């Protein structure tokens, strides 16, 4: 079990993490989601004892990460953003070093090193120097290091950055496997990755914990309506006139383009989407202005993430732009 209690980290006048609290007691994969600079790595460094919190505390299975560091750190495996590997050592030696420091017996160390190397598929490079390994292999060796000592909590800071698609799939699979018996917390700013892998998500923005829930609950909570978007060969005034008849429509966005065309999207609060679509179709038909394209889209994690981070007072513009670029649409009906 990991408990973060009101953790705050300040660097001079800048608050990197502000009053973050959460408890994870059940096994599974948990995502720390947030844009770059949101404070994800700082939180992970505090959780693993690599950094001290200005205020608050972290407890691992009841052991404080600062005052009972040795006990707490035995229960944690950590892969930082840059895998901490000595370039003049081999993966086998690197894993041996971690095993010795975690107090494993020679036999246990041997077994766990073999298991970690097999799980991360680094056996074939076990005796090559870490400095000569590719980024993907370095990441795997780092992950194997985090697995040594059979920790009950594994913390991974952006474990899939810089990997090719095949390696990303492998690492995600490994995280799921590890999550069956232990708590795996990983950070990412890639929404689809978090959505696909995690049981629950911690959404961080501006150093604050905005939400901690399942992807489904978050979607329900934030995106309580379905997004309808369409393109009509009508003027903006005509579109506005017709949409004023649709009850519960919100977040209306109209973008006129070309000659007499409009791209429209709005949040429909109605339960029966087909009925809304039919009304729109006939309303435009009545004025002999055709709808050339119409889509009904369930709000995705991207949408709710943008909505959540929009509410943070700090300037998260860069993060939101990044998310928008990433968001190529959610699940389409």
């Amino acid at each position, binding site marked *: 079990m990991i408990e973060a209690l009101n953790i705050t980290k300040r660097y001079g006048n800048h608050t990197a993490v502000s009053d973050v609290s959460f408890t994870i007691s059940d096994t599974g994969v948990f995502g720390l989601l947030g844009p770059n600079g949101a404070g994800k790595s700082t939180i992970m460094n505090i959780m693993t004892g690599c*950094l001290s919190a200005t205020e608050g505390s972290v407890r691992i299975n009841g052991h404080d990460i600062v005052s009972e560091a040795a006990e707490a750190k035995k229960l944690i495996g950590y892969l930082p953003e840059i895998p901490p590997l000595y370039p003049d050592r081999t993966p086998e030696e690197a894993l041996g070093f971690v095993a010795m420091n975690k107090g494993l017996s020679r036999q246990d160390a041997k077994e766990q090193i073999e298991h970690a190397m097999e799980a991360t598929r680094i056996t074939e490079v076990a005796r090559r120097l870490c400095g000569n390994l590719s980024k993907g292999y370095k990441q795997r060796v780092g992950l194997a290091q985090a697995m040594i000592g059979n920790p009950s909590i594994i913390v991974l800071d952006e474990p899939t950055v810089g990997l090719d698609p095949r390696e990303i799939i492998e690492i995600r699979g490994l995280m799921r496997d590890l999550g069956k018996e232990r708590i795996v917390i990983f950070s990412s700013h890639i929404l689809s990755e978090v959505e696909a892998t995690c049981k629950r998500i911690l959404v961080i923005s501006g150093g604050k914990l905005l939400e901690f829930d399942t992807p489904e609950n978050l979607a329900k909570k934030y995106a309580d309506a379905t997004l309808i978007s369409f393109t009509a060969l009508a003027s903006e005034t005509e579109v506005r006139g017709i949409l004023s008849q649709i009850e519960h429509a919100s977040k209306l966005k109209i973008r006129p383009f070309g000659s007499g065309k409009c791209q429209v999207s709005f949040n429909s609060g109605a339960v029966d989407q087909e009925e809304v679509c039919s009304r729109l179709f006939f309303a435009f038909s009545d004025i002999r202005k055709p709808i050339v394209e119409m889509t009904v889209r369930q709000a995705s994690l991207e949408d709710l993430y943008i909505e959540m981070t929009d509410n943070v007072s700090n300037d998260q513009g860069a993060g939101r732009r990044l998310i928008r670029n990433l968001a190529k649409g959610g699940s389409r009906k």
Partner: protein
Amino acid sequence: MKSVVKYELLSYFTNIPAYVFGAFLLLFAGIYTSVNNLMAGSMNFELVLQGISFIFLIAVPILTMRVLAEERSQRTDTLLYSLPTSMTKVILGKYIAMLVMFLIPLMIIGLYPLMLTAFGHGYLLVSLGALTGFFFLGASLIAIGMFISSLTSSQAVAAGTCFVVMLVNYYMASLSSFVSSQPYASLIALVILAAAVAALLYLLTKNLLVSGIICGMMELALLVLFFVKKSLFEGLFGKLLESLSLFKRYDAFVDGMFDLTGILYYVSVIVFFLALSVLSMEKQRWAE
């Protein structure tokens, strides 16, 4: 700690710097033994050790430059922070590994006085005392080098700074003779020294209040002492420089005296700089 020692030794045996360090010591010890003992027909091996002590100016930066600076530059310090091993044990482990690398050439050098006995009556006890002193001198310089390495992520900066510090220490006793013996001169020098110590403390702790209070207390104590007993400050700074010189302390061992106060001083320097190294590494964790 054992794991750190083992890991570090493995690293030293697979990298060039430790070999260069050992080669430097052996090369100069060989040259000086040939010239001072074999060619001159002298049995005073301690003079060889005194003669080659300058080699620490180059050898110590070579050995110590990477020990902690490299951890920071390669971001492997994160691993050390996340392991259930305390930073004190990590620092001690790394230091012991360096001492082992120093002891290996020193043990070979230790055979020289034994070999010299084949040519006449040697002063083995004096040589043994000088070797012991030489070990402690090197060990304290390595501790200083380690601390300097903990302050930066650049090995070149660590080596350069370490060389300058070693050089100043080497010539400190000679420089002391140039310092004015006037009480005011000593007071000014000590006031500056106290401020420098407080600045170093601030650098390590980033705690302005504590550093400021300590600086104020030291300055106040100096001023009070100066006005109460001015005569105490006569030539004080020069004497202080001389007594702080690690190399000067070694002269007693060369003169055939097993100077226990010297050993105690070297041990104090080692403990002090190892503690500073731990503090310096912990400072990263507590960065505000």
